[in-house]
């Protein structure tokens, strides 16, 4: 059964064109990304809050 989990992670702010892809790649290590957003940036990194579908 699919379960929903909340994650917070930090992704380095490297050149912008790949930021979304890198965030989603990091989230996919936990499960299927459902909803996420960068909520802040600090120390050269994006703080991401996400809800993930996990089996």
């Amino acid at each position, binding site marked *: *059964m*699919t*379960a*929903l989990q*909340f994650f*917070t992670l930090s992704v380095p*702010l490297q*050149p*912008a*064109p790949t*930021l*979304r892809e890198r965030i*989603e790649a990091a989230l996919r290590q936990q499960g*299927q990304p*459902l*909803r*996420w*957003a*960068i*909520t*802040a*940036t600090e120390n050269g990194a*994006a*703080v*991401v*809050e996400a*809800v993930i*579908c996990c089996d």
Partner: protein
Amino acid sequence: MINRPINRPVNQPVNQPPFTVVLVVPTGIGAAIGGYAGDALPVARAMAQVCDRLITHPNVLNGAQLYWPMINVLYVEGYGLDQFAAGNWGLRPVGRNRIGLLLDAAIEPELKLRHLQAADAARATLGLTLTDYLVTDEPLGVQLQTAASGATWGTIARPDSLLRGADALIEQAGAEAIAVVARFPDDEGSAALQDYRQGRGVDPLAGAEAVISHLVVQHTGRPCAHAPALSPLPVDASISPRAAAEELGYTFLPCVLVGLSAAPQFITPLDGHLRATDLRAADVDAVVVPASACGGSATLSLGHAGATIIAVGENKTRMAVTPEAVGLPAVPVESYAAAIGVLAALRAGVDPASLRPYIPPLRPLSSLDQL
């Protein structure tokens, strides 16, 4: 569904592609405008007058029992909007969707009847098309949460039951869009609810609502929107006008049904090729977003793809992500009125910078490396 192209306005030159704008006000982040009960709808109404197609999402257009359907506005759920913006899905405008109504088994009989009557009213009074309804095979078990940022989110204990119900409505009843009504916890008396009703807090329900509709769209590839089922609240004379639309009756369902009735269908890779009248991410000319909330998937995707990002300063949120922080070039404006002016200029082919009193002179390129 009945497919239809978006009408081309009479002042649109035939050789110019339709001017297409995305309006994003993320839900559950305490947006000063659009963080309450459909209170960004006036922005959408005004903005729709200066673009040929406006793509926006339920949080902007849903005002409980208030709504304002517009022929050039596309009602696109957030997960689908993210996929569209990323170039993964297309949008196919339609004239009508058959809506399947999915009710949480946790809804009490009287509250359930209120929602069924709202759905029947939408059929009889508005002429909308609904399939027979379905009740989930288990209570969904909605739980509300708040993240460290202040954004709200939530979970449901039985996503499997939600998705089985959506599948059954599509496969057995022929639904083309799914309206979900889940029983949300009554938190009367909580500080979060009181703040929200006063127009100064974060919508405590919004994040969980988004999770529910995202799940259905991710799973089915069909339009979906959600209305919470709640016990009526006592009359309060101090309700903010921004939250007042949710004080009008027993359900928040009418706006959802109206929005879904003409929501564009998602064209996923499984559906085959896009038609000429379908919308692609590359069709988007501009994105209007709160200046502090530029860290969402759709904004990042469209900004990187070359759409003009218009960042609205006075729509404060709990987020702290400016366009500069995530490397997005943007046109900063203070208000939505100014954003609408920028859009009118862009649509006319006018550089918005030329509307300002000081225009810097052209400078020579220092080297061909800059080309």
